């Protein structure tokens, strides 16, 4: 078996701080081909009732991938993400990501992989930006991700 961190229930993931600079918010939106003005144009964002541009949901999802695989390593395979957004990520703030293993499901078949369920929260200065549940497993070549 390749390297994968210990994943007992209660295992706490290292905290990660993401500085929310304007360039990061715009670059991640454009990298995902999301041209909605609320993710890059402050004037139009204000016209839509928010004080500034804010991070897109897909960008937040990308930071969740990063946070979980920073911990799980290259052998981690993300199988499921469920996320709910709270307060927006505005430029100039910092999102602090924390995570904890909340459940482990044993592999169903020999040679299969255990599934590790992690609760992830990303908070900025206004409160929780995202609350997510992520299922990650050690990568298995055969029957991977089934």
């Amino acid at each position, binding site marked *: 078996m390749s390297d994968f961190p210990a994943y007992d229930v209660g295992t706490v993931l290292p905290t990660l701080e993401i500085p929310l600079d304007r360039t990061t918010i715009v670059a991640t939106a454009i990298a995902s081909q999301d041209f909605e003005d609320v993710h890059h144009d402050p004037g139009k964002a204000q016209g839509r009732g928010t004080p500034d541009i804010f991070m897109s949901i897909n960008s937040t999802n990308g930071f969740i991938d990063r946070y979980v695989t920073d911990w799980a390593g290259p052998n981690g395979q993300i199988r499921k993400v469920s996320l*709910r957004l709270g307060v927006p990520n505005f430029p100039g703030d910092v999102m602090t990501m924390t995570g904890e293993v909340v459940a482990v499901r044993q592999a169903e078949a020999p040679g299969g992989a255990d599934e590790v369920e992690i609760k992830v929260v990303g908070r900025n200065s206004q409160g929780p930006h995202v609350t997510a549940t992520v299922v990650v497993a050690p990568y298995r070549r055969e029957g991977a991700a089934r």
Partner: protein
Amino acid sequence: MSGPETDALHAQLTAFVGQQAEPDRVSRYAVNEAMIRNWVEAHEDENPIYVDAGAAAATGRASVICPPAMASTWVMSGLKRYREVQRLRAEGVQEDFAYSRMLALLDEHGYTSVVATDLEQSYLREMVPGDRIRCEFTIEAVSPFKQTGLGHGCWITLLKRYVNQHDELLVEERFKLLRFDPTQKKAVAS
């Protein structure tokens, strides 16, 4: 907007539930390493399996893989089409797809703003360079109207199924968004 009026609008919106939202979205290009690299650099994601074939091979994978959260990127319409859609919307031209008819109906009643609130993705198969992705969209649910901190509005849930060129299911997604009227913003928290 008053209760009976929103009830009537909600009933009209509910008629769209279960319908194909719009024609399948087909990726403009195959999953590729350049787009993946731009994404991981923007996210400052150092996981080597997205960019380094050797590191991916060391985990038993046949090639680099695409970050799971990038699924929707492959079926985005691109800036040219985005501008066309914006122009049509500004001109009040309505495309004859269930989802565009539904959004036009919301626009008419002042529910012009949108914010994504929930996302659920199950990854059934890793996406790899060369995959040609197609996405099927279904309008799965419409909530009743309520007052939110952003404005009065309702939630729409879209079911999206991402498949490859062999019609193998890669990702199943539920995407929930709030469509709201920013002018109906009372001092309410919810």
